[in-house]
């Protein structure tokens, strides 16, 4: 499904939107104030079998493309930002396995049995003490002994690690591999320990429950995702992350602007015949909201078109600097505009938006999207783009 009009009739999207308003939105304030996992949302998604949305139909999943997945994450984030982020992160991990595990009996079975039949949830451990936020380098290395392997990792931030059924972990390929010569390894519950090393008392995205943790796991060598992380990162993890994150940030911003619009309409009804002054500000905010949506949707459609055949040429294109720059630019644009839109919503609504217990409150939205620019630092991303632009000609 690669067109905007087809998305409108998506049952996946309709089911998710219902869960967003009936379940996620109802518990969002409690999830936020207690900094707890949005269990009700994920129980509902699991029951509706929506956790396998990103699994290809060949393995029994929904086989949704990027545009549909983005719309799904945005819809859920309108009800609860943390829920939208957890769902996006899960899809990212699933996509890495679906797109790079196809030649592996282990991963094919995992997709079919664990992700589709049992609707399991997968967390990700890319961050590590000592790599300073650079996902493309690792300190820890996998230890391989014949057909067995083991790994220890000191992670700075692990979202919903304690609530997940498996962890997908980056590490160096061997003990003497370079820091950037990495692989992804899947560990299923029961084969690892995750000892929490810090707390997760943050400004926002509190329901993602992402404290630091010391990971130790072991298993069979077949749990190492085929190929290199250099490829799965460029061809899958980065595009899925930056597009789905941008989509869910736009969902949060849309809900904040939606509250501002409801506030303006309520004012207008009291005084028909005159346009309230804050309606002008709302009109300007809508300009940015539309641009934000179009930005992630255009990237999603391009990705879906490119991967429709999923031949070698498409994978090569995803590995070019041109595509990497596009992903960086999308992430920087959406992570910067989302807080601005929440700020606008607050200015339009005023004190009723500032209050946490008002129906027009936008505090949680604002706090949630402040994580966007930090979640892979925009400064780090800008530095990478700047370096690529020294050789990229946009020809």
């Amino acid at each position, binding site marked *: 499904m690669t067109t905007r009009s087809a998305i409108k009739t998506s049952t996946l999207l309709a089911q998710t939107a219902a869960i967003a308003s009936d379940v996620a939105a109802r518990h969002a304030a409690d999830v936020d104030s207690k900094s707890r996992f949005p269990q009700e949302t994920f129980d509902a998604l699991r029951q509706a079998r929506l956790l396998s949305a990103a699994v290809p139909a060949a393995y029994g999943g929904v086989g949704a493309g990027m545009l549909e997945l983005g719309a799904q994450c945005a819809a859920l984030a309108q009800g609860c930002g943390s829920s939208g982020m957890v769902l996006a992160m899960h899809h990212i991990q699933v996509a890495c396995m679906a797109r790079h595990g196809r030649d592996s009996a282990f991963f094919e079975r995992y997709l079919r049995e664990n992700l589709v039949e049992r609707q399991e949830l997968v967390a990700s451990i890319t961050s590590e003490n000592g790599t300073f936020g650079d996902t*493309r*380098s690792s300190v820890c290395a996998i230890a391989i002994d014949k057909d067995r392997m083991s790994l220890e990792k000191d992670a700075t931030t692990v979202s919903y690690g304690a609530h997940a059924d498996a962890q997908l972990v980056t590490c160096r390929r061997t003990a003497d*591999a*370079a*820091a*950037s*010569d990495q692989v992804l390894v899947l560990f299923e519950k029961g084969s690892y320990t995750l000892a929490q090393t810090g707390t997760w008392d943050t400004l926002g995205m509190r329901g993602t429950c992402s404290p630091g943790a010391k990971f130790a796991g072991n298993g069979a060598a077949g749990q190492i995702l085929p190929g*290199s992380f*250099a*490829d799965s990162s*460029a061809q899958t993890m980065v595009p899925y992350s930056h597009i789905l994150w941008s989509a869910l940030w736009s969902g949060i911003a849309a809900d904040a602007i939606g509250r501002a619009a409801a506030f303006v309409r309520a004012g207008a009804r009291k005084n028909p015949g005159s346009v309230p002054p804050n309606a002008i500000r709302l009109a300007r905010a809508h300009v940015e909201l539309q641009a934000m949506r179009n930005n992630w949707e255009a990237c999603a459609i391009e990705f879906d078109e490119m991967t429709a055949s999923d031949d070698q040429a498409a994978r*090569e294109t995803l*590995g*070019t*600097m*041109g595509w990497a720059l596009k992903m960086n630019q999308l992430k920087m644009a959406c992570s910067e505009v989302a807080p601005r839109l929440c700020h606008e919503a607050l200015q339009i609504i005023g004190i009723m938006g500032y209050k946490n217990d008002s129906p027009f409150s936008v505090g949680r939205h604002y706090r949630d999207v402040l994580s966007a620019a930090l979640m892979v630092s925009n400064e780090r991303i800008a530095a*990478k783009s700047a*370096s*690529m632009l*020294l*050789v*990229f*000609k*946009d*020809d």
Partner: protein
Amino acid sequence: MSENAAKIRTVLKEHARLNRDADTLSDDSDLYQAGMTSHASVNVMLALEGEFDIEFPDHMLKRSVFESVGAIVSAIDELTEGR
């Protein structure tokens, strides 16, 4: 060893931040496995453009084109063909 391959090795020594001497690499050794990061690879590209007086078109700006001395030799041959 061709003249171009020797020049490429000199560029790699200066800019690729490899974890071993570029002269000990065979033509098809993987430079990324030898420690070249994507950041270092940009410096390699810039230095190659200067050294060979070429410009890599955007479609060539991908990992596989710079993954080994041999791959870089063919890219440069392609760009300097008929000179």
